[in-house]
């Protein structure tokens, strides 16, 4: 497809489990962003990739969160030992210039 895709669309997990969220950006977009949308915190920046490197990881809330990007394309956000406060919608966006195109998000529920 032409847009940003994310998988899974919904993920329910138990507290303490690890989860992986995937983002497929628009082909050719070199920049990729992860954001988190939660009721209490609104929309927050997590991490930014330029190519395969992450020059800005300032938004990752704890060392349980990590992300990687391979081949300048697909990115995976990993949350280890999930906590209930990690429940949120995780949004991915890709960009070629100043405009960011968002995916539909992954809704994560930690029980």
């Amino acid at each position, binding site marked *: 497809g032409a847009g940003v895709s994310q998988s899974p669309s919904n993920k329910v997990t138990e507290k303490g489990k690890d989860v992986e969220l995937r983002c497929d950006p628009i082909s050719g977009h070199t920049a990729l962003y992860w954001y988190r949308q939660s009721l209490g915190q*609104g*929309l927050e*920046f997590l991490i*930014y990739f330029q190519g395969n490197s992450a020059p*800005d990881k300032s938004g990752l809330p704890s060392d349980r969160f990590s992300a990687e990007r391979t081949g300048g394309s697909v990115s995976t956000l990993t949350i280890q030992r999930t906590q209930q406060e990690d429940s949120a919608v995780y*949004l991915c966006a890709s960009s070629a210039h*100043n405009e*960011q195109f968002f995916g*539909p*998000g992954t809704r994560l529920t930690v029980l």
Partner: protein
Amino acid sequence: AQSVTQLDSQVPVFEEAPVELRCNYSSSVSVYLFWYVQYPNQGLQLLLKYLSGSTLVKGINGFEAEFNKSQTSFHLRKPSVHISDTAEYFCAHLIKAAGNKLTFGGGTRVLVKP
């Protein structure tokens, strides 16, 4: 630190009435501003953007916004809303010096009533 403030968390409006959603930003550098719309259970869709040039920006679905540097505002308007405009709207500021990451306002939920 840069910040974006959306003054109204909810705006109820009748169909075919005008609507204005207010947004103020705090940064004086690299002023790139955006409005996004989020329909239920969907991602963010760009409505319009201000990068430079004319302060009146026209976007999709009949929306427009005016950049006002002296008031540090970027209010969104539509002269006549439809039921389908019911959604949440986010104002965002792009921080060019930091990898183009977006800082979002808290969102304004618009409920269009028949």
